[in-house]
């Protein structure tokens, strides 16, 4: 534990230093460095099979890195800390089918030491926030995929974390639902001021959502580019995506993933 880690970065929430992960001889992650500031929306984008899920496991303490460390609020993490929540890709498996949606959320608050009444109120508030206020008694398997993922988001929000990690959260829903959930996530993030780290393979999604896009290269995974996205806090599916800045950012990320050098045009516009 080095207390000087955050010196000079008062806003640093998550600090990843030299993170490497090997399974036997297979090198998955190679010396990743990453800083996430408080209140930021960071998207980590990389090609399929680039060890994005492994990265997220290391970031959350679910899996121990082979080398390097992950520091949250100045403390190195070895298990998921109480100020962190996760939304997983596979909503159909990440909610408990034997509990109603409401119970799925309240049960995740049992470690918070809130009393029963307070847990209930917080869960109802979070579910209402994601638009499920009228469906509290339903079981996850009685709801559509989009609703299930909303419930998983509500579970993370009710936990009131400082940082939410999202692992390809919208990869398994249809396009319309996906756009709705992206906008919901943006709105919640702006409204609640939480920090979000979202892992995705979708370049448009990454640029649309993020304040900063971290581009990963393939095998072993390493950071090849970091792109600041200056599209403002208010975004919308049509005008933001039609913005010329959006398309130039998107091509820069795309080239990064393909392993091509950024062009002069990228340097000017990005």
């Amino acid at each position, binding site marked *: 534990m080095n207390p000087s880690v955050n010196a000079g970065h008062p806003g640093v929430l998550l600090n990843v230093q030299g993170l490497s992960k090997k399974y036997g001889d297979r090198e998955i992650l190679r010396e990743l460095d990453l800083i996430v500031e408080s209140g930021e929306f960071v998207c980590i984008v990389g090609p399929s099979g680039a060890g994005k899920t492994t990265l997220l496991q290391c970031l*959350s303490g*679910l899996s121990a890195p082979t080398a390097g460390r992950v520091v949250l609020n100045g403390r190195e993490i070895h*298990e*998921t800390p*109480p100020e*962190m*929540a*996760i939304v*997983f890709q*596979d909503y159909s*498996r*990440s909610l*408990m*089918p*034997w*509990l*109603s949606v409401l119970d799925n959320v309240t*049960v*995740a*608050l*049992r*470690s918070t030491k809130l009393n029963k009444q307070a847990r209930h109120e917080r869960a109802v508030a979070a579910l209402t926030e994601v638009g499920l206020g009228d469906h509290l*008694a339903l*079981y996850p*398997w009685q709801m559509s995929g989009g609703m299930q993922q909303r419930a998983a988001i509500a*579970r993370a929000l009710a*936990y009131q974390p400082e940082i939410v990690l999202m692992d390809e959260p919208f990869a398994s829903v249809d396009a319309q639902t996906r756009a709705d959930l992206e906008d919901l996530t943006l709105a919640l993030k702006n409204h609640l001021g939480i920090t979000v780290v979202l892992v995705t393979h979708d370049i448009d999604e990454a640029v649309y959502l993020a304040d900063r896009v971290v581009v990963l290269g393939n095998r072993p995974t390493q950071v090849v580019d970091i792109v600041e996205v200056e599209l403002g806090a208010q975004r919308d599916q049509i005008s933001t995506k039609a913005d010329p800045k959006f398309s130039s950012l998107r091509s820069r990320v795309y080239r990064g993933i393909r392993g091509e050098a950024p062009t002069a045009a990228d340097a000017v516009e990005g």
Partner: protein
Amino acid sequence: MASLVGLRGVRAEGGGRRWRLNRIVSQIVAIVGALLLWQLVATTLTSEGTLPTPWSVGRALVGLWGTAAYWSALLTTLRAWAIGLLICSVVGVPVGLALGSSRVAMASTRWVIDFFRTIPTVALLPLLLLLFGATARMEITMIVLAAIWPIIIQSIYSVSQIEPLLKWVVRVFRFSVLDRARFLWVPSIALMVSTGLRLSATMALLMAISAEYIGGAPGLGSELVRMQTTLQRPEVYAYAVTAGLLGVAINVVIGRLQRRVLCWHPSIREGH
């Protein structure tokens, strides 16, 4: 619990009621068919009195209901069955879960378990009789030796039913060990373990009657033997029918409980 009941109520309206009625009607048809076949065989194929007709067996059964011997035999059998099944669960579930949690333990004990569960328990009867005599203790030992295997085996495999992603979820949200047990482990293994219990319950009843019939422990089986020696044929069959009805009742009760408690489970909510 109230929400579970409400849910079933809602689902019963969606065309399920008619389907249920159809099922009951077809079951009644099957029972009547079996009784007719029995009647036919009893009156044509066998010589007078060897196989009593369903009617005479029914009358004998109603007659037995008026005797104390019948009810005391029924209770004795049920008691031995319940104690045996309880021991099977208390020992079998933890053993199965422990074996199922470790790949090494599971692989190394597989043959041993297969070996012991295929030994016909009736073959051990002489040994048990020597040890305990024709007692309830002999009967319960036999029940446990025969009926513990389905519970152990189902419990072993139930461990693999715990969703790996949910294991992460409980870590992320920092569930205590007790909460993990209550909200993750128990619901995850419930279906497989309760199916094991159901298989074991039938097996236990079979063993109880056998231990009484062959081994002479008190209960329905030994009453059946007593009727045989006094050549009361319809009563012999009435006791056999009692054992059969008991088996059906046990299965229905456990099945109902299973469906009610596990109404969220994919294999139950779709087949409902």
